[in-house]
């Protein structure tokens, strides 16, 4: 059988290659390179998932040195799930973006290289087993995301990008100091080396490092109340960019939080587990509340991201239980696909109506049924209504909470579902209103409608077949 680990390297090298090539060749060829590259990556990762059978992580020693001298890449079920999500979501988005930017060369010229670097950073981050290397990948993700927001250089984009950049820089600064302290304490930054070294009573610097790194990552994940930078960035960027950012970028820093929390910092995590859960609950309530009040479509979706990220942190008191990890991975994938679909659909609606307001949606169920259907399906996933993947996530979260008699977690999850319904149906009701037939709408290429729909349908179909994804993660329901 082909060793899947070598594919992992390709998942990092390929996007680097097409990013560089796209920079040289320019937008037209660059777009094709991006689409084809993503297609190949998707194929590879699906192959990896299909041939995934080992329970123990597979390690690729870069340079052949091996940790702690060299850098290791580690692929386990969790990383594989995130890799799958990244490729599967970014492929339709590249197709979407190719059409979306087609008439605007000045934007797409820089979109493709930056997108390539972003995907590289994500893939590299998911598999890196070296704290300092993770810092570099974090910077790739952060800086490329900021640059993508700034594309085009409108007023709103630039200010949003600057604010986003400051947030992500504080985050990486804190993380970096944490790495420095850990190196000072143990003399290594390789996770595999560190984890056994962390004894029952690690030095004070270790706890401090843990707090610094986790804070930095939560800031990058825009966990309430550190979410202040997210709505302008995600709500202000071009639709394909917003989709990439909301679906994938925030998940990367969350993935790291989860990984470090359960592996490296397990010894100090239990005492403070209620903090992220509390912030998560706050995120759900505050984000939903702001989404309910929003006037602009994309701002509503952005605040919905703030709220949905809250669910990811609700499980922390249940960690390191495998059922909790399954729940949060399902939520990450559900939200990833659904939110990408929603921003893509919003992009179509905004292009068609020429305005980013809900009032402009009147009558769109008749004019753009496919896009509205996509929006509805994505909304279904976000509300956690069956038979969507969002529902499976909610179901697993509730079960995990009950298994430990932490009733508050199911209660918050259920309440959050209802709040989500309020703002989703608020948009949909606007679309069902009758519009004066005089209103003219611009024609949008069908491919954009269909890619949005494909993502939304995927987020629902995953709900009918969650078994395969969950099979990647170890452990069965107790």
């Amino acid at each position, binding site marked *: 059988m082909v060793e899947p680990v070598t594919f992992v390297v390709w998942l990092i090298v390929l996007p*680097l290659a097409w990013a560089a090539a796209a*920079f040289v060749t320019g937008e037209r060829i660059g777009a094709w390179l991006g689409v084809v590259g993503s297609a190949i990556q998707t194929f590879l990762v699906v192959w990896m998932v299909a041939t995934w059978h080992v329970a123990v992580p597979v390690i690729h020693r*870069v340079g052949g040195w091996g940790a702690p001298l060299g*850098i290791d890449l580690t692929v386990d079920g969790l990383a594989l799930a995130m890799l799958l999500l990244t490729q599967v979501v970014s492929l339709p988005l590249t197709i979407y973006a190719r059409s979306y930017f087609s008439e605007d060369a000045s934007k797409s010229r*820089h979109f493709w290289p930056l997108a390539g670097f972003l995907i*590289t950073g994500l893939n590299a981050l998911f598999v890196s087993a070296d704290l300092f290397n993770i810092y570099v990948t974090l910077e790739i993700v952060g800086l490329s995301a900021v640059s993508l927001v700034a594309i085009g250089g409108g007023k709103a984009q630039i200010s949003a990008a600057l604010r986003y950049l400051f947030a992500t820089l504080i985050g990486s600064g804190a993380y970096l100091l944490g790495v420095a302290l850990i190196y000072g304490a143990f003399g290594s930054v390789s996770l595999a080396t560190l984890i056994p070294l962390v004894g029952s009573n690690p030095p004070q610097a270790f706890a401090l490092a843990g707090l610094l790194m986790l804070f930095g990552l939560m800031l990058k994940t825009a966990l309430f109340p550190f979410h202040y930078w997210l709505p302008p960035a995600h709500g202000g960027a071009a639709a394909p960019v917003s989709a990439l950012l909301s679906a994938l970028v925030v998940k990367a820093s969350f993935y790291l939080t989860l990984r470090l929390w359960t592996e490296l910092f397990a010894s100090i995590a239990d005492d403070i587990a209620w903090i992220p859960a509390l912030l998560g609950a706050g995120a759900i309530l505050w984000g939903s509340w702001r989404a309910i009040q929003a006037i602009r479509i994309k701002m509503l979706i952005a605040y919905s991201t703030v709220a949905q990220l809250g669910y990811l942190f609700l499980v922390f008191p249940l960690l390191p239980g495998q059922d909790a990890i399954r729940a949060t991975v399902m939520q990450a994938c559900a939200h990833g696909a659904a939110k990408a679909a929603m921003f893509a659909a919003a992009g179509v609606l905004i292009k068609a109506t020429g305005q980013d307001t809900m009032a402009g949606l009147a009558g769109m169920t008749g004019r753009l049924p496919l896009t509205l259907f996509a929006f509805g399906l994505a909304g279904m996933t976000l509300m956690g209504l069956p038979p969507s993947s969002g529902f499976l996530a909610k179901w697993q979260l509730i079960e995990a909470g009950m298994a430990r008699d932490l009733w508050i977690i199911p209660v918050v999850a259920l309440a959050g579902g209802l709040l989500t319904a309020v703002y989703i149906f608020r948009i949909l009701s606007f679309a069902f209103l009758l519009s004066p037939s005089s209103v003219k709408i611009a024609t949008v290429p069908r491919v954009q409608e269909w890619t949005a729909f494909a993502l939304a349908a995927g987020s629902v179909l995953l709900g009918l077949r969650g078994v395969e994804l969950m099979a990647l993660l170890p452990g069965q329901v107790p």
Partner: protein
Amino acid sequence: MKRAIVIAAALVFGGLLINAIVDLPSSPVNLRIAVADNMAKSGVSHPVTAVLLNFRGYDTLLEIAVLLLALIGLMAAGPMLPPPPNQPADAMLQKLARIATPPVIVVGGYLLWAGAFRPGGAFQAGAVLAAAMVLLHLSGLLSAWNAQLLPLARRVILVGGFVLFLCVSVALLAAGSLLQYPPEQAGLLILLIESGLTLSLAAILAGLFLFLSRDNGGAP
């Protein structure tokens, strides 16, 4: 009020930090030994270069990517305002720049070559060359670059070093894993990579300045 709180918090944090640093035990792992043991196989004689280009070469690969994408991001932020009328540069300054440039290039070359056995290497070399370009620009001898219409050659130079590095790392995948140098060719390959990087880094670092310059280099 806010000020007071922040300062107080900072003091507390600093105190904790220093306290944590002071009572650090000696670290259980000591990579110094590991590095020393593998220097022979690394292909260079300077430990830092060995770590940068060989043991942790993967970091360096990604780091160039960061530099490159920062440059692209800078270009993506859109065209700057039309330039103010070029004021003629001081003739004295121009003469000085003309004289200074050749030796600076030599220094760059030396730094690149020295990297193998003492502090130095592609970054230092690239930085020096970039400095020379900035100097030429400031003295009006080198016009600024326009992010919107960038000639193919310049684009190739910007990414060339990185692409070369990437190709070498991938080619070495045949040996089993990414960037796995065969010890005998290691020195040669590293020199190759560093030479490529020197040019690209010089271009990128200079670009970070030249793209932002108000003098738009004769663009329409």
